[in-house]
């Protein structure tokens, strides 16, 4: 085999396993779902259970694969500690997420088992995004993930909200993919390279005066950056995210909110700090502008919201603003703070969505998902333990010590001050004070609200309770001993 070695297949062991089991699950689902002798059973819950088991074995495979630190498939994919760590975090988080949304399909009577198969494919795509080392593999992985998400967003076919959200997401996502492609084509045309490592070498000695085509290369990198910022819903490209978060069914919204940002932000880290590290100093202003706009839009947008999912979408935008502020320092301390922030954000959003999915209000004869923010008034009288866990999660998102959200924001601010970006630091502090208000307003609604009416909630389910308690314990432990996560992030940056 001249161009493929056996290393190429060994490092992709987990992905091959997950793809194979996705196909096997699909065949199993189809055969079982259409067999008249068994009474055409609904296999959705069954395949959901298989999903969790498959992920457990997938995590075991990645953790114990002694893969060398190489690039594989003719330098299309790279396997260093950043991709290894991101892979493990994505798989673990998706296992916990799958336990959280296990019974959502059954309660809401969406009886399509393909949900789990498309989610499995989306997880494989996210792993490929975090592994990619060439624009070709990056584009294919991003498209793979995006197409899976378009289908998932419009999954509840009988709901107008869901189909409209899927359509909007499709249009804006395909538009951003076309922009990404234009950027890659221009970069390819003027450098002749698509590999991240080769690009880092060609940009090494580049200076403005010598090169005529530097402007077009800068323009192409701006286009690629814009497209990737579209995908992580940074302002001013955030338009799709509140609508899609609100329209999609809540299990899909939790998938959007928790998982893809980690893969995309590790990809942005690779592009900005590995391949474009020399040339990005000319484009610092784009990252700073996007960070400021994201924080502004996220904070003031979330202030005005009355519905849960749009609120979470806008607070996500403000968190992404902090992460971009960390990246805009163009130093490794800033990149460390950004990666640390996204890991803490993944944990808190897992907790948030496990709380949100347990808000089921009684609307006879079945329950419906809570929609409005103000409907959780007097939650303390219904379930005091649950409301105290909601308080802990909100404190972590607001950035109050000793929760890890505070340390995440503190690291970003410290790295900003170190790089003399003092204006950005002042804006970040002011806006996070304002964002603290709308998190604490929720606590006021839960504990000290004056209305006498209260909605009847169905009790929290066992899996969600386990995941919620696990994540909150992790938050408290990490808040006390930051070493656990910061060592991990340092290894991801430098290995």
């Amino acid at each position, binding site marked *: 085999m001249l161009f493929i070695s056996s290393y190429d297949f060994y490092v992709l062991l987990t992905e091959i396993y997950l793809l194979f089991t996705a196909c096997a699950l699909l065949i199993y689902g189809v055969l079982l779902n259409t067999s008249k002798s068994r009474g055409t059973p609904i296999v959705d819950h069954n395949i959901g259970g298989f999903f969790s088991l498959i992920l457990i074995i997938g995590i075991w495979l990645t953790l114990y694969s002694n893969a060398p630190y190489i690039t594989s498939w003719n330098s299309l994919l790279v396997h260093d500690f950043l991709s290894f760590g991101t892979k493990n975090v994505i798989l673990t988080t998706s296992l916990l997420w799958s336990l959280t949304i296990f019974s959502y399909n059954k309660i809401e009577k969406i009886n399509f088992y393909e949900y789990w198969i498309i989610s499995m494919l989306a997880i494989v795509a996210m792993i490929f995004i975090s592994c990619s080392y060439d624009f070709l593999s990056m584009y294919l992985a991003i498209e793979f993930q995006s197409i899976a998400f*378009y289908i998932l967003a419009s999954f509840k076919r009988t709901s107008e909200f869901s189909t409209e959200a899927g359509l909007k997401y*499709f249009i804006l996502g395909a538009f951003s993919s*076309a922009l990404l492609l234009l950027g890659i084509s221009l970069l390819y045309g003027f450098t002749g390279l698509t590999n991240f490592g080769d690009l880092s070498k060609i940009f090494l000695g580049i200076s403005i005066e010598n090169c005529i085509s530097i402007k077009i290369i800068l323009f192409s990198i701006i286009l690629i950056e814009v497209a990737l910022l579209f995908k992580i819903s940074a302002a001013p490209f955030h338009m799709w995210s509140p609508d899609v978060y609100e329209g999609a069914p809540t299990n899909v919204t939790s998938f959007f909110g928790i998982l893809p940002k980690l893969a995309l932000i590790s990809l942005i880290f690779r592009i900005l700090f590995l391949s474009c590290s020399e040339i990005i100093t000319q484009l610092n202003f784009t990252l700073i502008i996007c960070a400021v706009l994201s924080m502004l839009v996220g904070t003031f947008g979330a202030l005005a919201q009355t519905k849960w999912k749009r609120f979470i979408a806008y607070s996500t935008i403000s968190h992404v603003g902090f992460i971009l502020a960390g990246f805009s320092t163009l130093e490794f301390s800033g990149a460390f703070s950004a990666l640390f922030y996204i890991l803490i954000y993944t944990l808190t959003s897992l907790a948030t969505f496990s709380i949100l999915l347990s808000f089921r209000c009684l609307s006879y004869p079945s329950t419906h998902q809570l929609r409005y923010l103000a409907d959780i008034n007097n939650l303390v009288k219904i379930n005091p333990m649950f409301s105290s866990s909601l308080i802990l999660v909100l404190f972590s998102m607001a950035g109050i010590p000793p929760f890890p959200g505070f340390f995440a924001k503190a690291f970003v601010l410290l790295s900003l001050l170190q790089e003399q970006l003092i204006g950005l630091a002042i804006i970040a502090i002011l806006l996070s004070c304002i964002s603290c208000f709308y998190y604490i307003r929720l606590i006021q609604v839960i504990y000290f609200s004056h209305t006498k009416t209260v909605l009847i909630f169905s009790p929290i389910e066992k899996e969600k309770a386990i995941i919620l308690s696990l994540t909150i314990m992790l938050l408290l432990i990490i808040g006390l001993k930051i070493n656990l996560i910061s060592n991990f992030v340092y290894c991801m940056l430098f290995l």
Partner: protein
Amino acid sequence: MITQLYCENYTFFLFLIGVLGIFLNQKSIIIIIMSLEIMFLSVSFNFIFFSIYLDNIIGQLFALAILTVAASESSIGLAILVVYYRIRNTITIELMTLTKG
């Protein structure tokens, strides 16, 4: 004489036609999907012209990959459009305001 600059201009204007098709559209969503396809096509042309100019094969491989992905993406888009149409019985844009913003 067809120079490289001429090819680059052509593809860029084709991309611009696609972008304007999305933003100046007041009629229906099919126009948007067609404009997206025009954008993908123009980028494929860009890759192929650059590949000929640079004498590098990666551009043509990329164009082949774009072709595959654009085909699957438009099929997904049309499937979502069909599902949307079944509920709403219309595909004009003015009524896509259920979720504002």
